[in-house]
């Protein structure tokens, strides 16, 4: 043991959720240590890596895994970090570096619709959340004010306070969609953590069209800013600290986090309260790794629910050529959606979905397709321009129900640090497939309304993944069926809390970050309240 560190709170994971929970605790006066497995990386390095990348459509290419804290990558070939047990591959992507995975995201910051909290009661599927929309509403607002969220009101999620910002200006292509799809469909501007004006010292969006893999101007919020804010609030952040075990005392209280530095020297960090916020795969992995005589199945796992109920948002899509020039690639990548299928009685039968329009430039993809097809000479330029101008794409974002058989376990294989790798057990069930089938009529109608030709449906039976890993540490009122209570406190350990998208009991149809962050801010407020500290909901992040 090279040294001993100690704090009131030890937070494992410096992503957007871990960092902002840490910030809130630090602002209340607590001492906080954040342990991050990966390295610190600057925005400039990421921009440079992207522009020098040989795989510019592979958004993980600017984020090579650190040898001492790997994350899964699949190109140019899989590093086999996330082992696949099937039956359906779960090609999850996430980033282990200071700030975590929201360094690259489309910054969607949707709230659930109120019925998402009660799908068991209303539709007899999935589970109900241990809280209501109203319980979470103030923390949605808090999350939105910290991140700087812009959005439109017509999305089915009621508000008590206005959005911090107006919706981001609508790209011409999305305006044409909105105009031509009306009145059949209402196309709305997405709710995103993207600046429609200067906010908290960060500029308004300049339409760089690289939200993924990196917003080069910080007009989009990300976890790197959260980590900065946590440190500004007084939290101590230790990078390259790969936590491999949590220790406990006889009563089952957590006493220490053990981490390896890049040289595999072990360090020990003690604390009064521990918060695991290491993402939907690494958090359950850490609990499963932390076995002991008293807890042979790992920590917080008396219910055997750790790692189970793995959910995400599978997507199928349609690409077509509109009959007019729309030129995707001007403005942010993901500006507009159709929301009408996010809730309804049909949820008893099939998955709800949001329909999502991309505005990602088609140039890179079209070039590769044309070269693959052997299109050369002047025809290449002509067709490239045609595709860049006319191509459009719509995808569904489908809900996956919690199922204990979809899960993260420990693999028998070990990573470079000698720690067992995570293993995914995943499947696409009929509920989700039926949602996909229902959405095909919308795909066709949308293409028809846009004068679409050359319709290219994604391959039947293939679902793209959206990297919204959740459910693996589900919260719930029943200690036998869930890992933690509504405050994120584990049922088995008084001083062990869980934060992150892993605690979400269902995936609904919204990108998981806003939900995970709001729940974590609610947990942090509860922790402070329990400890008699001030819980004031903080406004805009002043970092």
């Amino acid at each position: 043991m090279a040294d001993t560190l100690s704090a009131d709170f030890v937070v494992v994971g410096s992503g957007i959720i871990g960092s902002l929970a840490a910030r809130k605790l630090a602002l209340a006066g607590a001492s906080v240590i954040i342990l991050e497995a990966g390295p610190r990386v600057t925005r400039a390095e990421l921009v440079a890596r992207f522009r020098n990348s040989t795989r510019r459509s592979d958004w993980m290419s600017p984020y090579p895994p650190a040898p001492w804290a790997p994350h899964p990558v699949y190109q140019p070939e899989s590093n086999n970090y996330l082992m696949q047990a099937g039956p359906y591959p779960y090609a999850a992507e996430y980033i282990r570096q200071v700030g975590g995975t929201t360094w690259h995201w489309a910054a969607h910051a949707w709230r659930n619709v109120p019925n998402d909290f009660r799908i068991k009661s209303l539709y007899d599927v999935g589970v109900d959340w241990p809280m209501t929309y109203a319980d979470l509403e103030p923390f949605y607002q808090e999350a939105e004010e910290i991140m700087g969220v812009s959005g439109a009101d017509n999305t089915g999620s009621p508000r008590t306070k206005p959005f911090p910002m107006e919706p981001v200006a609508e790209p011409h292509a999305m305006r044409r969609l909105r105009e031509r799809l009306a009145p059949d469909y209402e196309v709305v501007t997405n709710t995103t953590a993207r600046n429609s004006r200067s906010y908290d010292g960060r500029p308004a969006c300049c339409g760089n069209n690289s939200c993924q893999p990196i917003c080069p101007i910080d007009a989009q919020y990300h976890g790197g800013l959260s980590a900065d804010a946590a440190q500004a609030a007084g939290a101590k952040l230790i990078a390259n600290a790969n936590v491999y075990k949590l220790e406990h005392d006889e009563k089952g209280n957590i006493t220490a986090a053990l981490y390896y530095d890049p040289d595999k020297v072990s360090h020990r960090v003690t604390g009064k309260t521990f918060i695991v916020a290491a993402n939907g795969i690494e958090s359950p992995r850490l609990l499963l790794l932390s076995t002991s005589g008293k807890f042979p199945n790992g920590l917080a796992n008396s219910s055997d629910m750790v790692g189970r109920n793995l959910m995400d948002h599978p997507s199928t899509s349609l690409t077509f050529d509109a009959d007019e020039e729309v030129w995707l690639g001007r403005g942010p990548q993901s500006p507009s959606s159709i929301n009408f299928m996010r809730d309804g009685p049909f949820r008893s039968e099939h998955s709800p979905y949001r329909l999502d329009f991309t505005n990602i430039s088609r140039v890179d993809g079209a070039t590769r397709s044309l070269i693959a097809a052997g299109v050369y000479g002047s025809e290449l330029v002509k067709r490239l321009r045609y595709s860049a101008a006319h191509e459009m794409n719509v995808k569904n974002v489908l809900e996956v129900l919690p199922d204990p058989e979809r899960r993260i376990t420990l693999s028998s294989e070990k990573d470079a640090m000698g720690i067992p790798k995570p293993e995914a057990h995943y499947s696409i069930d009929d509920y989700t497939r039926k949602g996909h089938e229902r959405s095909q009529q919308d795909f066709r109608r949308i293409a028809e309304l846009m004068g679409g030709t050359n319709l290219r449906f994604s391959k039947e039976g293939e679902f793209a993944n959206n990297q919204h890993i959740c459910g693996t540490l589900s919260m719930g009122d029943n200690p036998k069926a869930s890992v933690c209570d509504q405050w994120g406190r584990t049922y088995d350990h008084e001083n062990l809390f869980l934060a992150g998208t892993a605690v979400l009991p269902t995936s609904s149809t919204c990108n998981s970050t806003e939900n995970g962050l709001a729940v974590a801010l609610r947990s942090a407020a509860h922790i402070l309240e329990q400890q008699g500290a001030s819980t004031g909901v903080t406004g805009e992040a002043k970092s």
Partner: protein
Amino acid sequence: MSRALSWLLRHAAATLTLSVAFFAVASPAASADADLIARGKYMATASDCVACHTAPGGAAMAGGLPLATPIGAIMSTNVTPSKQNGIGNYTLEQFDAAVRKGVRADGKHLYPAMPYTAYALLTDGDVAALYAYFMNGVEPVETRPPETKLPFPFDIRLSMAAWNLLFLENGPYKPDPAHDAEWNRGAYLARGAAHCGTCHTPRNLLMAEKTSSEMAGGDIGFWHAPNITSDANSGIGGWSVEELIAYMRDGQIAKSQAAGPMAEAIDHSLRFLTEEDLKAMAVYLKTVPPVRDAADTQPVFAWGEPSDELAIIRGTALPQDLDTMSGPQLYDAYCATCHQAQGQGSFEGGLPSLMHNTALGRENTNNLVMVILGGLHRQPEVLMPGFASELSDAQVATLSTYLVLHFGNPAGKVTAAQVTTLRAGGASSTWLIWAARIGLAVGALVVVVILLFLFARTRRRAGQNEAARAP
């Protein structure tokens, strides 16, 4: 300078005992009418009173903004009509003395952080309007900022009188019959209320504006207020009247973007002026006698060509030590995103070109470094984020060198040591607002020091004589 000094020596005794004389101004009607108050408000805006008398986030005109000087903070005062804490008890005559002569109601001299040397040009009518506005249009605020307490000997406010006698213009603006009404309005505003020369006119060794080099550019703290004479290369001779109007109103045109204290002047003051007044000022500025800086062999907005060095960095990893990133690597990572690969700016110029831009056309590179560190802000928008927390001094120097070589005047040089200095000085934000005023205060203090030196020498000589006489 030497003339001024000898004048000073001749009049030192007189000035030290100078008593403050009020001069009469016609009394206004007892109750100011709405038009007069509105006119006063407009003139207060043109005079940028809020820049100093409203602290960021504080109540309007309630003062309390400290000007950090090397010898202590000068505190702006409450100028709301509060009778206890503000200027509510001021008569018009007392108000006038403060604004145009730098003398408080109690007879004490104001430190010339207050630009009364420029306000001296205000007409009686505008002073009366300002008085009506401050008494009737400003909410009284019952807070009193701490008194300015400078250490001895700098607390001798009376010695300001000496400086005033040297440099305070006598009487309000007198229209020049050789020019039309528009020009005269412009001259009145530019030299008076808007006090352009406070920053843009260089100062002599006593920190007074050099009237012979009006608007030829001055250094204010760490910023450089550029030459805005009518010179075609160094000044604004090559700007159209329309460009000058747009610049003063919006703070940005293709060839130039306002930063630092100028951005604040636009935010607080210039953008609220009428198009007619901005045009009048532009017309006047275009006639200010040209002064040329030797380095400006072509217009400062005419340098640079589209170019890049991307070929040598593509496919090359960044160095382990980011301090050793090359110029093109730094440009690629921090600038090219908005200003584009060849510095050409965005379609339609919404994000400005770096070529043909005054930002890179001057030999003095302080503003360039200050903008890279602090960014460009036009309330409430961040037009360009600052990179102080991301770029090291070495990186800023490397990057700046790339910028001036590709897009600017190669005579401009930036060193890491310069960045270190500017970073340290520019860290505090409040002084930016005061930067325009700092020169005056320093000048006043120089006078104090000279006087004290003379006084002490006289005393010492007297003492030596005494000693010599002693048995």
